[in-house]
């Protein structure tokens, strides 16, 4: 994700150079192109052996579903994954960038990455862009200090939580978590609860839909269950092609070529006087 040095302002952070011009354009009625948002339900919870992350798979562009089966659980490190809500480009870019930074850090230290390291990289970047990088993340992983689950907001604030939800479907998913979560869940119970919460978002929120992705991270192992549940299959596919009703009669199967009314002279000289 490195950019050419001269494009980036000297010390990082948000460059306010174009704000005046943007304000002037906005006053004249120029609208920003609508960016693709993920309109999402993402969740995470801590169970007895680690962390389970879950996400739906619908990406929206305003009222249209742009991608029916996108991936919202991003890789950061072998033991750390991150779900992203908000602008799809922002979540992709930020998680890719921090993943590279963590990789370099691992080479430098020779140790497994810690979740708080990823957290600090992410919050530092998001804060320096003052909320303009619209990425709301649920970060989860297991390192040698234990399982961790954090939420990160676009402006850079973070929370440490036993269970978390973000995105437009967060309220629907949080209703499920608040009523059913307890500490010390087993793996099956945890996956069941995460699936229920994502399904609640899928069926009760318009911005979320399609399938459920799950990622289970434990001390020595991670499992990425892509499309763990597909509660919205295409229900009817006709086995035969279109059939015309009996009332449709075929009158004629002869092909009559059209007679030319005007003789077309070869082009090329036509325009020249």
């Amino acid at each position, binding site marked *: 994700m490195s950019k050419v040095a001269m494009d980036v302002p000297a010390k990082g952070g948000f460059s306010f150079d174009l704000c005046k011009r943007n304000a002037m354009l906005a006053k004249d009625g120029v609208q920003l192109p609508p960016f693709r948002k993920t309109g999402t339900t993402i969740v995470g919870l801590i169970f007895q052996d680690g962390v389970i992350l879950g996400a739906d798979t619908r990406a929206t562009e305003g009222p249209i579903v742009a991608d029916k089966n996108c991936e919202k659980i991003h890789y950061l490190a072998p033991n750390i994954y991150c779900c992203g809500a908000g602008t799809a480009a922002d979540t992709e870019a930020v998680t890719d960038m921090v993943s590279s930074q963590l990789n370099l850090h691992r080479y430098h230290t020779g140790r497994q990455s*810690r979740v*708080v390291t990823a957290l600090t990289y992410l919050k530092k970047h998001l804060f320096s862009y003052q909320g303009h990088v619209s990425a709301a993340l649920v970060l989860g992983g297991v390192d040698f*200090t234990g399982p961790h689950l954090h939420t990160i907001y676009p402006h850079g604030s973070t929370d440490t939580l036993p269970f978390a939800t973000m995105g437009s479907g967060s309220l*629907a998913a949080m209703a*499920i978590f608040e*009523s059913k979560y307890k500490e010390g869940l087993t793996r099956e119970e945890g996956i069941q609860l995460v699936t229920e919460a994502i399904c*609640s978002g899928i*069926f009760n929120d318009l911005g979320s839909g399609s399938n459920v992705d799950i990622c289970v991270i434990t001390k020595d192992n991670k499992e990425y269950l892509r499309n763990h549940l597909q509660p919205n299959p295409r229900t009817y596919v006709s086995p035969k092609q279109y059939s015309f009703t009996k009332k449709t009669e075929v009158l004629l199967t002869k092909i009559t070529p059209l007679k030319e009314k005007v003789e077309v002279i070869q082009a090329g000289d036509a325009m020249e006087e």
Partner: protein
Amino acid sequence: MESNSAKPGLLCSPEASQSQRTMYPYVTGTSVVALKYKDGILMAADMGGSYGSSLRYKSVERVKPIGKHCLIGASGEISDFQEVLYYLDELTLNDNMCDDGNSLGPKEIHSYLTRVMYNRRNKFDPLWNSLVLGGVKNGQTYLGMVTMIGVNFEDNHIATGFGNHLARPILRDEWREDLSFEDGVKLLEKCMRVLLYRDRSAVNKLQIANITKEGVTISKPYSLRTFWGFSAFINPTPGAQ
């Protein structure tokens, strides 16, 4: 007897619509959650009246009985709710004066309230409420709601305000026909507990009202038990010392 309007002078006079408009609510109540169960309707609301972001009134009764057959619950502007109760009072009084043994059922009152709310909205002077109407008449249970713009519908379970986002997913998942009274109360309390955790204007003091063909009972105010002992709350940064 003049026309049936509740306040004959005010509604007709020309200056009324110009100067008197509800622009924003002041003292508001938060969500109301209700569901149909085997014997009737259960409706729950907390007792908080917020003045903007200040929790000003903590004993506001937001669920009231109407006549013999109905319960009404309201979220939104409290003064407009009191106005609605005044209109309904007038309505039931006029009806009782006919003295024909007939009493207004929930469907009739729902219909009346829909007309009132929609007409007020058309005059740009809405009653800033979401009203939940439930009742039992002639063995039939009925549960419906009207919002401040006049949207009205009837369903097996209703939630207003924040309950739309937090309680409705739970009710859609777990409501079923022929709930017993205990199960119905447990389900309502589950919804109210989530609202208590996640709605900033909720208070931990609620009343549950029950209406069956026998009549109305509104419980005394009580609180829900909450749990805050997660290890991530107690020690959010293990290993970072």
